[in-house]
């Protein structure tokens, strides 16, 4: 091990209490940033979960629609007009809207109906763990997520209930399809969805458009927009981005998460800076001795930056362990903390940068130390 690293580590470990305080600062900071960013990613994945899991080339929604649950109505006649546009192969109508699910004990709970026309290539429930999605073809059959069993008083396939007074049977169960609004998604056939939501049958919430293999998406999108007024034609990526942008930034929810993460970085930087500075002050005569011995500035920077890096590596290691616990703990919760490998790498780099920035105050102090002070004590 290099002498610089030895000196840096021993200086850090000499005052264990201060070292622990420094590590706590880093761990607090990194965990806070990790959780905030994990919530951000979890939230943003949840916002677009239906869009991201639907296999389609274009989403057609009304002009003012900002996200999937943003209720809007399009005339079903739009389907015929879409089919006439060059490049369009298939069009499936979908209906979405709130309704009321009646539990066996008579209590009503709000649900969000997603009506799909499977026969025409409508969106299909994913992560089916019991039954099949094709059961939606059978009238008065619905698909629910098992995370909502308690809310819906359900126990699996075969459970019966009422939606808007109409009897339904659970035909399939999914795992992990959760709504960020916390209102359970209930998948149904298109005709049932009209009945469950009370929407007129000549209106749909959206259309899924599949293109012919040779069709150019952008050109077809432009053709659709020029042919039909009052609509948006969005690729899945565009619709996802539009949804995320609305919820994360226009509502301020994302900004709050980012602000929380930023706060974590600031708190961590200040704590590490304070501990490094006080450690440096305690060893000021040693640094002055180094300077008297002729150590270059860069040599002294190395000692302090090594101290910062040791803090960063150990602190990040502990924070990563806590973070993995948080991920595990929230995996089945209403709002998951999603930590991706890229986020881990980014957080590690952030921790390193944070600790090096923290070292600046200590470096500032040390480079100004007069080596002659070693002659006065």
């Amino acid at each position, binding site marked *: 091990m290099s002498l610089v690293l030895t000196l840096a580590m021993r200086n850090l470990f000499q005052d264990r209490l201060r070292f622990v305080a420094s590590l706590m600062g880093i761990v607090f900071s990194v965990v806070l940033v990790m959780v905030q960013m994990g919530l951000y990613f979890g939230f943003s994945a949840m916002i677009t979960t239906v869009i991201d899991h639907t296999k389609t080339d274009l989403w057609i929604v009304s002009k003012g629609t900002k996200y999937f649950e943003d209720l809007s109505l399009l005339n079903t006649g739009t389907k015929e007009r879409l089919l006439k546009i060059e490049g369009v192969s298939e069009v499936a109508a979908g209906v979405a809207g709130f309704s009321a699910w009646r539990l066996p004990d008579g209590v009503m709970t709000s649900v969000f109906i997603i009506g799909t026309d499977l026969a025409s290539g409508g969106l299909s429930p994913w992560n089916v763990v019991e039954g099949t999605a094709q059961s939606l073809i059978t009238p008065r059959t619905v698909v629910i997520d098992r995370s909502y069993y308690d809310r819906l008083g359900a126990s699996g396939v075969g459970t019966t209930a009422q939606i808007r007074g109409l009897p339904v049977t659970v035909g399939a169960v999914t795992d992990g399809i959760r709504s960020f609004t916390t209102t359970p998604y209930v998948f149904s056939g298109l005709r049932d969805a009209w009945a469950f939501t009370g929407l007129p049958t000549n209106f749909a919430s959206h259309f899924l458009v599949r293109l012919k293999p040779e069709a150019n998406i952008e050109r077809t999108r432009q053709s659709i927009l020029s042919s039909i007024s009052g609509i948006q034609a969005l690729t899945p990526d565009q619709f996802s981005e539009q949804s995320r942008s609305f919820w994360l930034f226009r509502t301020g929810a994302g900004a709050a998460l980012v602000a929380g993460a930023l706060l974590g970085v600031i708190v961590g930087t200040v704590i590490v800076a304070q501990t490094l500075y006080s450690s440096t002050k305690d060893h000021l005569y040693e640094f002055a001795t180094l300077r008297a011995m002729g*150590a270059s500035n860069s040599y002294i920077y190395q000692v302090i930056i090594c101290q910062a890096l040791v803090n960063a590596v150990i602190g990040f290691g502990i924070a990563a362990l806590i973070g993995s616990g948080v991920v595990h703990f929230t995996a089945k919760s209403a709002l998951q903390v999603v930590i991706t490998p890229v986020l881990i790498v980014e957080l590690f780099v952030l921790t390193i940068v944070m600790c090096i920035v923290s070292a600046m105050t200590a470096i500032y102090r040390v480079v100004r130390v007069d080596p002659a002070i070693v002659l006065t004590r």
Partner: protein
Amino acid sequence: MTESVIEAANVGKSFGDGPASVQALKDVNLTLNGGELTVLMGPSGSGKTTLLSILGCMLAPTVGTVRICGTTTSGARPEQLAKIRRQHIGFVFQSYHLFSTLTSAENVLLALDVRGERGPKAMAKTRDVLASVGLASKLESFPRQLSGGEQQRVAIARAIVAEPSAILADEPTAALDAANGQATMAILSAIAKERGRAVLVVTHDPRLFGFADRIVYIEDGALRREASTSLGPADTQRGDPSQWNASSKAISSSSSQ
């Protein structure tokens, strides 16, 4: 023929401006030669530490020039002064200033590390130099496990391991008992004689004059007297200043070679 290692010519140093200005050094001329142990003595506040700081390139003189192994320090930036210290000067301090978290060997190794000397060769040099000051068995000891005399010997080993041309020692025996003080001076004297280094020792202790080849007296920022001495340690232990005063010569306002 001795070779001059450090030359101070017409050096003056003042602190502060205007009427509050303090003249710490006045027109000092001093040369430190290789193979010679020079003792610098004077009362508190006489300018010893300021002179040591200037000779050690830690402080710039207000007037005059300092040359270290032929290189002038005038106008040098802090990093350049650090390089001169690294290349030519070793320090021994009154309070040792060892790194409390490093072992004896690591403390000595550090002096080589800052010069970019690392690896087995540096370690071998470290072992040799610690053995030369009688600490071959204390390589892995931390400063807190060593006596004051041993700590000072580690500090001397650190000062000489990179074979600098000059060793500047600031009251190296002040914190030691008589026996350890004598032993430390014996080592410093041997460094001057056997290694041909220029050694400057600042001290108040007249018992150590016997180790000196030259004694320089500073008062009110000016060099007052200079003496050559051939007295041995036993002769000087009584600390009778008359013994070296007898062979000293008065110098007017400065001391020159």
